[in-house]
């Protein structure tokens, strides 16, 4: 088991004929053999990736012809919001947007649009998902991960790889790794993924990696306190971030919470999360938490 993606996922790649899209579609295909199509407007009818993958003009076509249920987006920032809405309109269940640099106002439109549809969005500005041994939907290097029972949720890309590397180093595999993205507006929040991992019989612990800024980790911590039975191990990057770098007053007022690493870590601890101060201690902390939990 796993969450969101597995070997049954039928993945299409929006922007599959672009340089990024084509490279990563190839990597995902090689990893899970389950990339079933691509979408590039105007290139419908072609085949790509050594003739293995059909290209469609629209997501609707891809959904109808190859039964796509996951879409991976590598469309440039100016067009990415539209691509997300196209996938949602086609009824694609899981949309994973890797694109970095989408204007915030565009994402406000996307957020409103998604409220009227049943699709789930992961990202944007994220490394995507990886269910080791089954499916790769994004840009995470597959070879660093190992099949197992630790769920990973992270705001950042390479720090996720670091955490996975440490887990493998202490002999722990992962059920699914999810990079949720670091943008102000993202599709799926930490607390929603915690719920999925809690319900997944094959996940026995969750690593949650956050950053300074925003209030999502606080919300997730409260969720852990009230809903989680599985151990959650948390780290917040940015304990040494410069205090002089401040957003405007209005921004701080809206967020409604103290957004520093110290404040977040304190709340997380209160809520029963195993908080690690050092980013080098993530793997070991998970191992210890699992031992304690199995007693």
């Amino acid at each position, binding site marked *: 088991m796993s969450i969101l993606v597995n070997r049954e996922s039928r993945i299409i790649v929006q922007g599959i004929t672009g340089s990024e899209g084509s490279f990563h579609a190839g990597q995902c295909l090689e990893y899970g053999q389950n990339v079933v199509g691509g979408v590039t407007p105007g290139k419908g009818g072609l085949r790509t990736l050594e003739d293995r993958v059909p290209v469609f003009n629209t997501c609707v076509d891809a959904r109808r012809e190859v039964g796509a249920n996951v879409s991976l987006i590598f469309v440039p920032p100016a067009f990415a919001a539209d691509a997300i809405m196209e996938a949602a309109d086609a009824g694609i269940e899981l949309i994973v947007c890797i694109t970095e640099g989408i204007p915030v106002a565009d994402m406000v439109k996307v957020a409103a649009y*998604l409220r009227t549809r049943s699709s789930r969005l992961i990202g944007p500005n994220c490394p995507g998902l990886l269910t080791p041994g089954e499916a790769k939907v994004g840009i995470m*290097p597959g070879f660093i991960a190992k099949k197992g029972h630790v769920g990973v949720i992270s705001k950042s890309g390479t720090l996720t790889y670091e955490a996975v590397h440490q887990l493998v180093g202490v002999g722990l595999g992962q059920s699914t790794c999810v990079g949720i993205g670091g943008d102000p507006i993202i599709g799926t929040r930490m607390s929603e993924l915690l719920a999925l991992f809690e319900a997944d019989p094959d996940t026995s612990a969750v690593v949650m990696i956050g950053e300074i800024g925003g209030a999502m980790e606080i919300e997730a911590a409260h969720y852990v306190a009230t809903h989680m039975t599985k151990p959650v191990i948390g780290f917040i*990057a*940015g304990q040494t971030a410069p205090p002089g770098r401040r957003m405007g007053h209005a921004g701080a007022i809206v967020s409604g919470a*103290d957004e520093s690493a110290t404040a977040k870590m304190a709340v997380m601890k209160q809520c029963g999360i195993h908080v690690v101060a050092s980013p080098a201690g993530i793997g070991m902390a998970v191992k210890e938490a699992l031992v304690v939990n199995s007693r």
Partner: protein
Amino acid sequence: MGRNAMPPFALGRVCVTLTPLMKVHEFQAKEILEKVGIPVQRGLVTDTITNVESVIQSAYSQFNTTQVVIKAQIHAGGRGKGGGVKFCPTFEDAVAKARQILGMTLVTPQTGEAGQLVRTIMVAEAVDIAKELYVAVTLDRANGQHVVIASTEGGVDIEEVAAHTPDKIIKVWFGADGLLPFQARQLAFQLGFEGDLFKQAVSLLTRLVTCYLDTDASIAEINPLVVTEQGKLLALDAKFNFDDNALYRHPDIVALRDTHEEDPTEVEASSFHLNYVKLEGNVGCMVNGAGLAMATMDIIKLSGGQPANFLDVGGGANVDTVKNGFRIILSDPNVKAVLINIFGGIVRCDRVANGIIQAVQELGLSVPVVVRLAGTNAELARDLLAQSGVSIIPADSLQDAAQKVVQAAQLEG
């Protein structure tokens, strides 16, 4: 998205970001407001000390007044507290204050101790204030909507208002279509406006929201928004920040950028697509990815050192980015040792290794460099570094790397 209830309202004391937002000066913000028909306190700007007298005279005649306010134009807030805003009842006073402020190094609660050189001043009309309010438009990231924040308590630190009298903060959420007419009316009533001022307020709020959306602003703030003794609503001070991701569709806003207000090294770094922030410590670091970069700074601190910078070389780390990154880190004389921490995903460690080798050969090695490479082609990279003969200190893990670089910095220091 949107399935979560709003978190309870509380004070946001610390709000940190490593993403620089494009900012503009007060006079530029007011020009943006004027373009959409929002009344502002008028002013003339100058950056030349010899023009001060003539600019003040022009202000006198244009604004039909003999009382002006000299306002320093720097991006940082808290200008009044730092002595950068002065009311001047006479011509002599205005000239003296203008000469004093133009060219001064202004220290405010937001500039840091070093302060910021005042290169431009505004000679603004003095306004008879009957009432001060607060209004701002920004993003509410918790629910993915835009929000207007308003208060009858303007002209003061709005965070203080939120902390002590949260019931005096009004919030109205809206989407891409902007503020609906009834929302603008409700808000104006809630702020206590009636009669002609009510009409002015509805118009101003609607225009401010439109302007915020049209410019892809991340914050559009009027503080204070004042009611004059003459019964007019106007923006006494204004602040705009813009969404960097949307600047591609606003060349007119990009033209307002004032790089004097930014750290020169950070400006140079951004021209190489490197995200660099200078800090006070002595351990330089070069990392791929913002999260891992922050985590690397954290572990340097936890290992007893102080990070000298944040540097994210991003997903396109190659020979050139590594070389430029090196040069930028070493331009800081405080740096006593450097840690390179790369976790290769898309980035190939062998390319980074080649970058390190070239950089060391071309720039010379003035301080010890600890290198930790993991992920894609890490083994190949380690072999390349070993064979090259450049004297770097290899490290196996994040922990190992942090300890080695802190030790090296201490020996150098």
